[in-house]
């Protein structure tokens, strides 16, 4: 084994041409470096979107009659569109697989890298290119179509000209989204092949950690769903620049067909967002309870059934579009079948706590909050899946609250928990526990204060994508409460980000390979990992969460990590 390979990946490099500084990262095919680069890029974009969300909430603090206007009228549409495009296409869909999946999938299955390291780097470049395109699109005029790009509005809407030159920024943003899609597809292909071909000796499918399972299920969705939306968005571009008819009723098209194609991707996409976070929760909870996860196999199979069933219910977003009643009934019926594997997972996580030995680390707090928030998010999904209630709740703030509960309270909370869980492994630094917990407190309270009122608002009939709203007392009170919640929440976010940045710059160095005493193998290698992840290619002999066997190993000094002490 040569010298570079036994050093931490932060100091050794894969590419001798660029050994230092920025280029040694930007040209690196090491899955760990790529993961970190994704994290840096994503959090930059993400911060922009947080600010947009915050401003939208400010705008809604008082009703129209107050004359309180934070965002110029023409801009509100662009605001929520950009907010959603960044959050969804730049952050939460690619986020977990790209950041933590890249970093930990090979580590968890005992591989040296992903199957196609260079394709992996290409994905990152595509991501960066698409992301920059999307963000510049906004500076060049923006799009006010919502992230759903619903035609015929998205075909008709005019774009603002820059410096006297008419510029079709809607097409620009659509193209950006298409490019971003290819980044995700390639990542998905990479992970599927990695899981099938690169598992360590002895690691059967049912010996893979649950995070790996969830990334695997996610990858299939990425591969099979993303191309559909890619080409659909391109069809809108074609329709905008050429006199062809696909979805424009003036040319004989059916705008509802676009919605079908869009949701064929975008519904599975919500499971792309949530599954990796579910995987992270499945890692954090057994670790911090020091016992095997309850019902390992059901959770693994549930991940795959969520992905499978999740493909079959897209049209529950379309109950009010006037599609056939038969389709409405069918899709509503199918929708409920995704609740069952999800319920199984939630119950299994909760049951894992039983007779454990629980430590409330920051990661654990976020994981438990995930269960709480996501349950609310998922259960509100039941109201939306049920036909008659969806007719009332569709396109109201109830839906907005539903998806923030799932995407933010669920997926993003899980991700934050995951970052806290893995932070020391990734950087070899430790953060301040006290401040991390304080950040959690603000985020949890702020989050619920922000979105619970929105559930009620939606029930009372407040439509979404409204710049202003009529002066109705119940609206006023709830909007105000929700805005104040956003202040608490943002305080929490800032604390969390500050904790991370502080830890990165000034945090205590640590080389403790396994601070939380976790039994999975990514914890049994050096901190931070070496270039090829393991000094010796590992051989798996036990179940990933068999804590009794793990403790015995540690005692006997035979665990993989033992050699590093």
């Amino acid at each position, binding site marked *: 084994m040569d010298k570079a390979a036994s050093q931490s990946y932060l100091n050794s490099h894969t590419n001798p041409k660029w050994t230092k500084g920025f280029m040694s990262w930007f040209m690196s095919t090491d899955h760990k470096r790529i993961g970190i680069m994704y994290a840096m890029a994503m959090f930059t974009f993400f911060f922009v979107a947080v600010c947009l969300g915050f401003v939208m909430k400010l705008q809604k603090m008082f009703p129209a009659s107050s004359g309180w206007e934070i965002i110029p009228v023409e801009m509100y549409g662009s605001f929520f569109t950009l907010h959603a495009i960044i959050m969804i296409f730049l952050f939460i869909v690619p986020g977990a697989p790209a950041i933590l999946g890249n970093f930990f999938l090979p580590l968890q299955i005992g591989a040296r890298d992903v199957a196609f390291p260079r394709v992996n780097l290409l994905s990152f470049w595509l991501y960066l290119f698409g992301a920059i395109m999307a963000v510049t699109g906004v500076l060049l005029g923006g799009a006010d179509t919502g992230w759903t790009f619903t035609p015929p509005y998205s075909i008709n809407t005019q774009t603002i000209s820059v410096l006297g030159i008419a510029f079709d920024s809607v097409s620009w943003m659509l193209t950006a989204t298409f490019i971003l899609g290819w980044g995700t597809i390639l990542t998905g292909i990479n992970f599927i092949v990695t899981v*099938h071909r690169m598992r360590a000796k002895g690691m059967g499918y049912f010996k893979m950690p649950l995070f790996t399972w969830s990334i695997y299920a996610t990858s*299939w969705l990425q591969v*099979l769903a993303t191309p559909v939306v890619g080409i659909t968005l391109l069809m809108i571009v074609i329709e905008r620049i050429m006199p062809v008819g696909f979805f424009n009723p003036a040319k004989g098209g059916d705008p509802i067909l676009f919605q079908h194609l869009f949701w064929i991707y975008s519904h599975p996409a919500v499971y792309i967002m949530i599954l990796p976070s579910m995987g992270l929760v499945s890692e954090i909870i057994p670790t911090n309870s020091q016992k095997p996860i309850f019902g390992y196999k059901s959770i693994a199979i549930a991940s795959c059934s969520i992905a499978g069933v999740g493909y*079959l219910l897209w*049209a529950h977003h379309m109950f009010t579009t006037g*599609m*056939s009643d*038969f*389709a409405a009934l069918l*899709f509503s019926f199918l929708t409920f079948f995704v609740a069952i594997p999800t319920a199984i997972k939630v119950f299994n996580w909760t049951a894992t706590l039983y007779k454990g030995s629980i430590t409330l680390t920051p990661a654990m707090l976020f994981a438990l909050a995930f269960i709480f928030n996501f349950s609310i998010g998922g259960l509100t999904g039941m109201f939306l899946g049920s036909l008659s209630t969806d007719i009332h709740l569709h396109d109201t703030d109830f839906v907005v609250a539903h998806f923030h509960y799932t995407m933010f309270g669920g997926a993003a909370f899980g991700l934050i928990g995951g970052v806290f869980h893995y932070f020391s492994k990734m950087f070899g630094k430790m953060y301040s526990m006290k401040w991390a917990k304080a950040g959690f407190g603000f985020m949890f309270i702020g989050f619920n204060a922000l979105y619970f009122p929105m559930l009620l608002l939606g029930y009372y009939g407040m439509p979404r994508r409204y710049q202003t709203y009529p002066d109705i007392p119940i609206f006023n009170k709830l909007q105000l409460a929700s805005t104040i919640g956003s202040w608490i929440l943002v305080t929490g976010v800032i604390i969390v980000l500050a904790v991370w940045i502080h830890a990165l710059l000034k945090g205590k160095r640590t080389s403790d390979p396994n601070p939380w005493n976790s039994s999975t193998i990514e914890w049994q290698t050096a901190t931070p990992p070496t270039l090829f992840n393991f000094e010796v290619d590992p051989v798996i002999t036990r179940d990933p969460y068999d804590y009794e066997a793990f403790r015995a190993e540690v005692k006997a000094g035979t665990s993989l990590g033992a050699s590093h002490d």
Partner: protein
Amino acid sequence: MNTHEQTQSPRLPIIVFAALILLTISTVLLSGLDVGNTTSLLIAMAVASMKAGLVLYFFMHLNHEPLIFKLFLGVAFFTLLAIFVLTFSDYSFRVLA
């Protein structure tokens, strides 16, 4: 690692090719029959599927690939089928004009 290094004689590909050409000619001829829209579409699609199957199985060497390749094809195929069937659960039951 190469599991399927069997090199074949050019016989098989040429037979497959002949079959493909025959199917092409027959589909053109069959399209001349007056059997109603649905039937003629069904026939055309059936012939096309056969041709596609031949290309996939022989030209693309699925016949020599491990099981996992065929499973993947199955996943892709069923997903496609689901998309079409479910979309038509809307369009076949639309109340028209």
